[in-house]
Every structure is written in C-alpha cells, then in structure tokens.
C-alpha cells in the first residue's frame, strides 16, 4: 500500500514538473517570437493586418470613400518594411515618410484618415 502511495506521489510530482516545464517553454517561446505585424486602419477601423516578418514584396491597395471623396492609396511591403507608395492626398507626407520597419513610428495620412502601425518587438519602447 505504501509502495503504491509512493509511486502515485512520484507520478503526481513528475506530472506537476512536466506542467511547469511546458508552461516555462510557452513563456520563453512567446518572448523569443519576433513576429512583426503592420496594422492598417481607415477611420479607426482595422482594414488590414500584414505580417512583415515574412519579408514579402507585395502591394496592398486601399480603396475607400470618405463621404463622396474617393480614398486611393497603395501600400507596399519589402524586406520587412512598409511604406505608402501612392496616395491621392495633397500633401504626400505619408508617401514622403518612406519605408518604416520599426514599431512606435506610425505612418499617418491625415487627409485620407489612414494610419499604419507596426506592432512587434523593438529594443526600445518608443521613438521621438
């Protein structure tokens, strides 16, 4: 009876250690993940999530309306960075910002009410 009890205790302790190890691996792997996503918003609505860690070269059109006004933009990704390659806004500030690959540096088109935010790990909290 005692032997059986001891064996069960060992199994219980081993199981708890296993749970702890799995939990630790889960924590560490989530810390090491360096996935970088660009989120594209139009009028505060998320319209596109782009995985920049794939480092794909791809175009993402934005085609929308603000009232009767047509919003036409082209967002381009390359080597893990993102930029606005075309926009029908008058100032072209969003286009002139060039490629952005770091988080905490949004690309904003005030005229078209479109903004792009990169979410991911940087070695700093914000950039000014």
């Amino acid at each position, binding site marked *: 009876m005692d032997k059986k009890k001891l064996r*069960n205790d060992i199994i*219980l302790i081993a199981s708890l250690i296993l*749970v702890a190890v*799995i939990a630790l691996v889960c924590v560490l792997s*989530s810390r090491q993940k360096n996935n970088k996503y660009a989120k594209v918003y139009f009028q*505060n609505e998320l319209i596109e999530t782009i995985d920049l860690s794939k480092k794909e070269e791809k175009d993402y059109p934005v085609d929308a309306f603000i009232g009767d006004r047509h919003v036409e933009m082209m967002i381009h990704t390359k080597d893990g960075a993102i930029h606005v390659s075309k926009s029908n806004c008058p100032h072209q500030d969003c286009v002139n910002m060039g490629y952005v690959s770091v988080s*905490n540096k949004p690309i*904003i088109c005030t005229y078209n009410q479109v903004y792009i935010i990169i979410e991911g790990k940087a070695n*700093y909290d914000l*950039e000014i």
Partner: protein
Amino acid sequence: MRRTFKLLPLILVASLTACDIAHRYPVDTLFCFDTAVTVETTEYHGLMYSVVVQKDICNMLQQIDAVADAYKKRDVTCIYDLNSTNEKIEISEYLYWLLHECKELERIAPNFNPLIGSLSNEWKKALEENTVLSNDVIEEELTKINNSQLVISMTGDNKYFAQRKGDALIDVGAVAKGFALDQCQVFLRKHAEPDYEYMINAGNSSILLGNNRNGSTFKVKLKDLKDTYLYLKDSYVSTSGISEQKTTIDGVNYSHIINPKTGSAVSLYDTVIVVANGDYGNGALGDVLATSFMMSELEEIKQSEKEIGVNVIVIKDDKILYKSESIELH
C-alpha cells in the same frame, strides 16, 4: 489521488492560458488630433480594469479632439464654430478649459498665440504651392492677430461661453494634444494608484508616461541621433520638429511652425524635445514650449527652462545644440 490525476489536464490548460494572458495587454489605437493615438495600460491592476480605463480615456480623447477641431463642424460646439462667428456662443466645459489653458500659456510661452489660425492657413496654402508668403500678407495677418481677442467666461450655473473678437482665427493645434493628455493624467490619478503603468502616445509628438512594467522606466529612442536613448517615467515628453513636414524653397526650410510675433515660418532648429514631470498642466505646457522654442534663441530657451522648470533638448543637423543639465542620454 485519482481525482487529482483527473484534474491534471485542467491544471495544464489553466497554466497555458495564464501564460498567454500574462503576455498580452490591451492597446487601444484611435485616430484623433490628426494623428494616431495609442493608449496602453498594463494588466498590473487587473486586465479588465485596464480595458475599462482605456475605453474611458479613448472617449475622453475623442471628445477633446471634437471640440478642438478648427476645420470642420462637429456634433459639439468646436473651434470651427467660434471661427465662423464673432458672436458670443455657449461652449462645452472641455472647450472652455482648453481655451482657458491657451490664455494662460500665452503669458508663459515666448512664441505662442492661439489666434494664429488665419496666418497659419495662409502659410499652408502658400507652401502647398511651393511659394513663400509675401511680406504684405504677413503684415496684414499680424495686424489681424494684434487687433483680435479671445474672450471666455463662465456663469454661476456652470455655463461656459466664448467669443472671438476680430478677424484672426483660433487654432489650438499646438496645445490640444497636451491638454488632452493632462485630462488623461487627472483621470488616471483619480481612478488608479500612483504606481499605475501606462503610456499614452499621441503621434510620438505628445506622450504621457506613467510607470513602465513593474515600475521600470521607458526606453525612448531619439530618432535624430544614432543609438541615443532617454530613460523616462512619470513624465510628459513633447517633441516639435520639421523633419517630416518641411518645404524647402531656395535652400530655406519652411514648416507648419509659425512665429506669431514675426509671421515667419522658418524654424531655428530641426527638433526640440521638452521633458516635464507628470504634474497636471505639464502636457499642454510642454507641447506649447516645444513649438515655441523652435523659434527661440538658445539664450531665451535657457532662461525659460530655468523659470518654468522643464528640461529641453535642442537638435540641429543631427547634433545636440543644447540639453538641460539634468537630462541623461544613454
């Protein structure tokens, strides 16, 4: 014992869920003040608490954004309405205190005037056409500013009024984000403990920092300088710069930052960063000073920072021209 074994899968699932939640905390992003604003609190005091607090803060930011709008009519009385009439009109409490703040800051900051709207619009139009505003137009606009007045009042039954007298237009763009951050700070201090962890970032030019996770500081990168960082918490950080919004005409850089005394759109520096402690009012103050210092001589900046009690970094051509003694860069 068997019962305990039966509970093992449940313990496993609970542990994994807890691990996932521990690494996720809510970030709200919204478009207001013509920029992207992120509101971020950690779950240190409870995940649900963070979610509720952030929603309230987002609502507050949107309300202040609405009253500060000078370019279109909104659901509430806003700057656009004040700029459309010379009549005395009833305004909301937020707009009253925003205008009150403007009048206070006009006395403190060397180059700030909320009646700069019309001059600012003229410069915007000229720079869009790649031309410089003529001296005649500048003189005309400065006369408008000098002959105009902003009058605010409140009655005993908590009604608020404002009146624009003259032809100059009101523009609170330099102060609205900072004012909004001040209101957020009041809200956070009222509803949370002093060590609450948060960061509200209005387009990287106006930032309110509480504590970072576990009471640590935020690592702030200065983009104009290579591998240079500030470590901050419980602070307001206001940045004014021309790097992303300048128009070069005949070798001279013109920007959206206008001197209300001379009418010039030429800034003396590339970037001015003002760091103020987290006390109420320093958000609006820091924003206005950062803009105002872009047009101030270095001696004037040094004098002001001592009198007002803020810290300043002045950058030109990727080099630090001046920094306050108490600022430590790493």
